[in-house]
Each structure stands twice: as structure tokens, then as C-alpha cells.
């Protein structure tokens, strides 16, 4: 608790809008909300302030003379320091396409101008609450903020537990490593907000796999799945199904695009000594083999399995 500095200060809101009338209105209307309001009237100041202040929420006008809000949010999302700050779009042009575009670029909400004060307060407070929860979960419960999967730290701890349990009961234990193919190219071609969408949807796919399997974001575009009481062959079937599901996903951004992944698989009977480090190394080698085979496929570790353990 005590190391969460965010609990102890008033929420900070950064409003980026070219109209001084709007800034005055926000200051006046949110006066009693325990929200510190900071104002920027152009894109450059807004981005600079966002990096320095690290506000809890950004209210971003879409129509500004120098650069529009869609450009600005892409800069915010591409910068790791500002990537996780929730952005609420703020615009008087409230057509559906504009709103959808805003959400696709990573906005959490949309407020139309002229705004109802009560609604604005509710939406700002909801965005702040949400970002605090996400941050809290990421810090304390070891959940990855973007995908909602377990994070790397949890993966390391949990794999240790599962290896010990499998050893105790002479159970199988499989490990899948998977990595999205040519993901840097996806980011470069379609932008980071789209890359994030891919990670999120793939994360969702992994999260809805078999009950009892433990899906984690290992880092970047790499994921690890721990499969208790499962051998490598069974794990390969799981991976094949995931790959089919991933390939058949359609992407609004480019209907012709197919995202693929490579999978490396091993299990506890193929590694010596039977440690988490050996398991990770073996799965990593198998993943490398899948990449070398041309990606978009599943590779099982070619280490021969030892005879089935008996209790």
C-alpha cells in the first residue's frame, strides 16, 4: 500500500485544447472535484506536459489547428512513458466514424462538446478509477496491463510452483512459448495502437483457452503458457488450435492481413535436470526451430521424452 504514491495526491488531468474558453470552463466546472487541471493549447505543449506531468487522464481535443488529436494520441501511445495514460477524446464532431477511430487509436472514452458537466465529471472520474485499478493490478497482482494475462514475474513464480507439484505427483507438465511473427513489421506498417490491438486480441484468445492452463505475457510479443498434467503432444494440439484461431482473425484495419505466430513446445519429461530453467530453455529452442522452419507453425522439442514417471 505505502509504495503506491498515486493514492496520495489529487488526480491530475491534462486538457489539450486550442480554446481558452474550454480551459476556463473545465477549471470552473471541475473546481470541487479534487482534480488538478493542467492546460495546453497546442500539440507540442500538450505532448511535453504529458511527459513531464504524467497525468492520470488526458482530455484531448480532436480539432486543433496545428495537429489534430488523432496524431497526438499516436505520439502518446508510441512513447512508453505516456503509453498507459488514459485518453478521453473531446470533440464537437460526434459522428460514429470519428468515435470509432478514436477508440481504435487507444482512447478510453469520448465526450462531445458542448458537454454536460455531470457527464464529464463522471467520465473523467471513471477513467481515473480505471487507470488506477489497472496500475494497481499490474503492480500487485502481477497482471499485464495491456492483455490482462499474467505477467513475466508471475510466470516465473508459477512455473516454479508447477514444476515442484508435477515432480511431487509424477505428473506431466508442458510449456508453450509463442511469439507473434514479424511483429515489428506490423507495428512499423500499421502503427503502435494497432500493434497493441493485436496483442490484446491474441491475449484474449490465450485467456480463453483450456481451463487450468496458465497463459502469461512473457514480454513484448512473446507469450508463455504453462499446461499442468499435459504432455508435449497434447500441448501441440492446443497450440495448433490457437494458431488456427489466430490465422482466422480478421482485422478491420486491413481485411487482407493475416497475423500468425510461431510456437515452441516442451514438457518436463524432455528436460534434464527437471528445473524451470531447463524447461524454459527447451521451449525457447523449440520456438527458435519453429521460426527457422518458416514461422506460422508449431514445433515440439526434439529431445526424446524419458520413460513415464511412476509414483
Amino acid at each position: 500500500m505505502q509504495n503506491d504514491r498515486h493514492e496520495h495526491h489529487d488526480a491530475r488531468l491534462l486538457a489539450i485544447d486550442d480554446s481558452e474558453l474550454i480551459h476556463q470552463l473545465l477549471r470552473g466546472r471541475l473546481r470541487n472535484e479534487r482534480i488538478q487541471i493542467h492546460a495546453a493549447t497546442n500539440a507540442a505543449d500538450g505532448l511535453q506536459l504529458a511527459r513531464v506531468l504524467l497525468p492520470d487522464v488526458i482530455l484531448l481535443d480532436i480539432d486543433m489547428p496545428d495537429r489534430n488529436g488523432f496524431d497526438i494520441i499516436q505520439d502518446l501511445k508510441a512513447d512508453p512513458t505516456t503509453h498507459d495514460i488514459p485518453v478521453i477524446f473531446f470533440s464537437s464532431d460526434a459522428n460514429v466514424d470519428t468515435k470509432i477511430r478514436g477508440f481504435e487509436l487507444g482512447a478510453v472514452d469520448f465526450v462531445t462538446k458542448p458537454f454536460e458537466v455531470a457527464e464529464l465529471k463522471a467520465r473523467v472520474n471513471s477513467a481515473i478509477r480505471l487507470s488506477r485499478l489497472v496500475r494497481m493490478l499490474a503492480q500487485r497482482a502481477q497482471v499485464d496491463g495491456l492483455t490482462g494475462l499474467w505477467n513475466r514475474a508471475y510466470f516465473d513464480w508459477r512455473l516454479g510452483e508447477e514444476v515442484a507439484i508435477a515432480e511431487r505427483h509424477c505428473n506431466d507438465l508442458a510449456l508453450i512459448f509463442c511469439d507473434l511473427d514479424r511483429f515489428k513489421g506490423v507495428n512499423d506498417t500499421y502503427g503502435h495502437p494497432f500493434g497493441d490491438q493485436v496483442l490484446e486480441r491474441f491475449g484474449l484468445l490465450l485467456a480463453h483457452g483450456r481451463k487450468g492452463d496458465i497463459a502469461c505475457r512473457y514480454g513484448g510479443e512473446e507469450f508463455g503458457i504453462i499446461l499442468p498434467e499435459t504432455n508435449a503432444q497434447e500441448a501441440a494440439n492446443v497450440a495448433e488450435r490457437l494458431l488456427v484461431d489466430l490465422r482466422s482473425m480478421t482485422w478491420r484495419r486491413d481485411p487482407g492481413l493475416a497475423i500468425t505466430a510461431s510456437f515452441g513446445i516442451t514438457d518436463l519429461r524432455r528436460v534434464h535436470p527437471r528445473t524451470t530453467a531447463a524447461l524454459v530453455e527447451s521451449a525457447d529452442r523449440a520456438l527458435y526451430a519453429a521460426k527457422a522452419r518458416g514461422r506460422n507453425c508449431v514445433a515440439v522439442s526434439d529431445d526424446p521424452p524419458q520413460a513415464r514417471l511412476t509414483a
Partner: protein
Amino acid sequence: MNRSKVDNGNAARHPLISEFANDADMAELIEFFLSELDHRLQVLQAAWDTGNLEQVQSLSHQLKGAAGGYGFPSISEVAAELEHALAIHTPGSTLPRDRFESLMSQLRRAQAGAHHVD
């Protein structure tokens, strides 16, 4: 300029009062909005007279987004109409003078309302 005389008379007879005039929390904000109106009217008129349509469009865009928040939704409405007319305006075609005058007349009415309150 006969037109502006007529408008000023009209404004005085039909002052526009903020919808939030009875909200004590809003008094300061409305005062800020009204105190700026003089300057805003001048800038708008100058931009229009010099044919700086881009500036007129940008100023009406700002009013569209903000005026309603200060309790003047009718200003937001006419500002939106002017902004839209300018957005689709092509060089050489007739200027949306009536839309411009509607916005100016609403602003003058709000100005008259400010004195009215006093």
C-alpha cells in the same frame, strides 16, 4: 452600416441570458465569457471584413464547442451553422453572410444580457 444598428437595437430588446444565470457556481465563469465578448466580436468582425474565412471558421468552431457550456446553447447552434457553411464554402461562391450575422447578433444579445443583469 445600417444592419449593425438594427442588430444592436434588436439585441437590446432581446437580451440573451445564460441558462446557468441562477447557478452561483457559474457566476464567475459566465462573467469571464461575457467579459471576452467585446474582443471576440471585434476579432470576428475584422476577420470577416478582411476575408480571413479560415479565422472566422476557427473562431466559430471554438464557440460551437464552448458557448453551450457557459449556458448559451443558441450561440453554439448558430456557430455550428456558420462553421459548417464555411467548411463547405468554395472560393467564388456566395459568402454565408446571413449565418455570420446570426452569430454576431446572438453574441450581441448575450452582451446586452450582461448589462441587463447588472
